[in-house]
């Protein structure tokens, strides 16, 4: 028997798929040096699928997973132009929260947090969700007023949020400069205990593994080049690896969403902006919450490895470029030091950029479109990752039942023609 390429002894016995992950399994495989099977399989591409999902990020994979798990629809293909999670799902700052401004938004994101809470058990994959609390700082009377508003809307919807004063902020985050001498003194904060951070790659991989185990085909390095529409309904998808006949296409491509929607002839109120983020070298644990400052355009959290992750507002102009800029990192460092002067000697390891499909009202565009069989789960701007599970669940229901679920009824494309916008600008992001 030949040794496998990476030097491990070849596995004994039959390899079950998918491997069940457990502490005992880890110990056993450690002892017998058995190979882990791949988390998901790759299959040859068929020329026909019931459902084609464009975009292999958390949204597309979650929709595929819930189609298979909740509705038994398994003849599904997920097409990804790069590798799974190579877009916004791998570039966000992994913050989860539900302290939004509109009742529709709060209900929607709260459902997502509830799904995230049990996701590790559902997927048999450790997604490392740490509900460490989320703190949004107010540096002005106006932002304090918006936070009171958000806190009251949250309480009515059963979401734990409250406005706290500077003394309590200092108790939660001792390294924060809450003195009156700060350039932007901290007047108070919106404290949201259910918020936290998660391992974003693990969420993508967990959904991919769960979907693949239920029969969904995952096609990486497969770029969609066209969508065939005839008589107002979808007939198929053309890709860089051949054509697929299908009657249902879900666009879950975030920053690239207008390119896909254009192929189906659906105009979108979306503009693509890059959003940059950065991470520092690891330091000892000192920050146990997520800290956000809208005035300073920055949010900070500390990962389990000790790195500080910084996010910001979107770049000042539209672009499909994912290159970082020096202006950004200069500005970001200045803003972080306004908040936490103790970090002057901490070095930035790297910065990166992801694409955000911004909508006029900072809410997503979900559900059916004028083209029959072409559905969208786009417009995710700077807040898409936290909504992955609920968006996948709702879109799966939308595809399976043919009706728009109540939880996403407010987020349809038609609202821009009707004028019934869902304004989340005050709670969706920083510095807009």
């Amino acid at each position, binding site marked *: 028997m030949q040794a496998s390429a990476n030097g491990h002894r070849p596995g004994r016995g039959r390899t079950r798929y998918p491997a069940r992950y457990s502490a005992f399994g880890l110990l056993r495989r450690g002892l017998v040096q058995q190979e882990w099977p791949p988390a998901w399989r790759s299959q040859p591409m068929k020329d026909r699928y019931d459902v084609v999902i464009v975009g292999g990020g958390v949204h597309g994979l979650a929709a595929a997973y819930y189609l298979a798990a909740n509705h038994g629809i398994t003849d599904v293909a997920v097409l990804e132009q790069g590798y799974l999670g190579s877009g916004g799902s791998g570039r966000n700052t992994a913050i989860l929260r539900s302290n939004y401004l509109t009742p529709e938004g709060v209900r929607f994101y709260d459902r997502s947090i509830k799904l995230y809470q049990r996701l590790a058990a559902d997927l048999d994959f450790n997604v490392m969700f740490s509900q460490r609390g989320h703190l949004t700082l107010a540096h002005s009377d106006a932002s304090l007023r918006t936070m009171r508003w958000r806190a009251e809307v949250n309480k009515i919807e059963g979401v734990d949020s409250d406005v706290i004063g500077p003394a309590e902020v200092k108790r939660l985050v001792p390294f924060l400069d809450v003195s009156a001498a700060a350039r932007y003194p901290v007047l108070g904060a919106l404290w949201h205990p259910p918020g936290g951070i998660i391992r974003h790659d693990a969420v993508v991989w967990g959904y991919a593994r769960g979907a693949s185990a239920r029969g969904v085909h995952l096609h990486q390095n497969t770029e969609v080049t066209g969508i065939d529409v005839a008589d107002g309904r979808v007939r198929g998808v053309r890709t860089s690896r051949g054509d697929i006949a299908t009657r249902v296409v879900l666009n879950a491509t975030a920053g690239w969403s207008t390119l896909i929607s254009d192929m189906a002839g659906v105009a979108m109120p979306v503009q693509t902006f890059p959003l940059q983020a950065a991470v520092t070298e690891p330091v000892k644990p000192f920050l146990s919450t997520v800290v956000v400052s809208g005035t300073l355009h920055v949010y900070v959290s500390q990962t389990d490895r000790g790195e500080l992750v910084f996010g910001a507002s979107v770049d000042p102009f539209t*672009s499909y470029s994912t290159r970082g800029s020096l202006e950004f990192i200069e500005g970001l460092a200045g803003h972080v030091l306004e908040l936490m002067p103790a970090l002057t000697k901490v070095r930035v390891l790297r910065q990166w950029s992801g694409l955000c499909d911004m909508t006029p009202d900072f809410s997503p565009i979900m559900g059916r479109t004028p083209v029959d069989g072409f559905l969208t789960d786009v417009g995710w701007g700077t807040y898409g990752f936290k909504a992955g599970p609920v968006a996948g669940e709702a879109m799966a229901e939308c595809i399976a039942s043919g009706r728009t679920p109540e939880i996403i009824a407010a987020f349809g494309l038609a609202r*821009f023609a009707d004028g019934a916008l869902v304004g989340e600008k005050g709670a969706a992001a920083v510095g807009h």
Partner: protein
Amino acid sequence: MILLPCAWCGPRDAAEFQHVGEVVTRPDPRTATPAQWRAYLYLRANPRGWTVETWYHRMGCRRFFKVERHTETNEVRPVTAAEVPGAAAAGVAGPAGAAGPAGMAGTAGTAGTAGPAGAAGAAGAAGTAGASG
């Protein structure tokens, strides 16, 4: 760092400017239906490639002008009159009005060649002098 060819100040750092966005044609508010008006307000082409857009030189001459930018590489080149959507219809160009080198009536003929940013700046400066005199 991106250099933008301001029609009046020459090539300047993009940080001095405010991105106004894609050039869109404003329908006549007296005759537009609500659907047309909302399409004008919200719908954008959001192309990946060359696009004509309006910028505002907020920390400089405080004028609006148009440039053509590649949204993937962020290359910028001066815009020519023929490339501005809706430029043929009078009064639809918004506050930018007769902006850009191409907008200078006297130099419109020569602005057809997308020259280097510096040349565009010089043409723009000449145009400004003419306009103020």
